[in-house]
């Protein structure tokens, strides 16, 4: 079950698509944390908390357990921070600890990389025998921005995300909500690049279909 912590709408993501939100500032906070700065710790928590709860929620069955996993992860961070060598980004290191903690709670076997569903991402019936569109995508892109501003679409997207198979949801959320790179996601979830792309593809395609159903009347 997904723990719904995504709430507000912000404006369009600044900078290039997929650029993590000011992750480079982690370095300074990490240095201060090592020096025993309590404020730096709380600042790091604030920066990563929501993404951590979201990811933990994908592994465990309740919001309360997800919060526990997050707390447990931060204790692991405090214990291990002196050994953090900076070979990966702090965020990657952090999220890997989280995934380890979440799986050691025994809720899910990490080794399985099931895609979660199978078959074409667009209903076969929408193409003719030659594979050309018979029932083409309805036009809705411009509407969606207006609807988003009016908050009307947030719940739809959240519901569609919650409805994705867990692995697809994890990849889409890390990539498209949290702004991680493909490489970071592979490292955090311990999956191959090809697998990451398949999960991303299926997840995004489901979300597109959900938006089309909501906005385009199909």
């Amino acid at each position, binding site marked *: 079950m997904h723990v719904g912590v995504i709430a507000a709408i912000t404006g369009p993501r600044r900078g290039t698509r997929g650029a993590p939100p000011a992750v480079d500032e982690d370095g300074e906070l990490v240095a201060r944390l090592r020096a025993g700065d309590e404020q730096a710790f709380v600042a790091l928590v604030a920066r990563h908390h929501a993404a951590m709860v979201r990811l933990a929620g994908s592994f465990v069955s309740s919001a309360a357990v997800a919060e526990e996993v997050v707390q447990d992860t931060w204790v692991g961070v405090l214990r291990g921070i002196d050994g953090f060598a900076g070979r990966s980004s702090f965020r990657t290191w952090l999220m890997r600890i989280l995934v380890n903690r979440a799986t050691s709670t025994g809720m899910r076997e990490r080794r399985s990389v099931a895609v979660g569903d199978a078959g074409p991402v667009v209903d076969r019936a929408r193409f003719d025998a030659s594979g050309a569109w018979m029932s083409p995508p309805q036009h809705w892109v411009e509407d969606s921005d207006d609807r988003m501003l009016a908050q009307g679409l947030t719940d739809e997207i959240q519901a569609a995300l919650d409805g994705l198979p867990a692995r697809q949801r994890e990849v889409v959320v890390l990539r*498209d909500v949290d702004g991680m790179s493909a490489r970071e996601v592979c490292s955090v979830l311990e999956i191959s690049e090809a697998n990451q792309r398949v999960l991303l593809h299926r997840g*995004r395609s489901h979300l*597109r279909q959900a938006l089309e159903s909501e906005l385009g009347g199909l």
Partner: protein
Amino acid sequence: MFWSKHDLACQEMVELITDYLEGALPRSQRRRFEAHLAACEHCTEYLQQMRATIRLTGSLSAEDLTPAMREEFTELYRRWRSEGD
């Protein structure tokens, strides 16, 4: 529209779209993908919708840490410090 056997069908396009957006298509495949796009308004629409979907998903954002949670994590830190000393 008539497709030769070297062309991609729309049905194949929708399955290749993420590899295209991720820059993971081999060059020849990428050329065929783009040639199809240039000739097919529906697949162009579909691509725009995938981009819009990514953008809309990215505009979901997380709640900030509540004051109570801030307190809680400050406590967690202090507990850890006192145990470690």
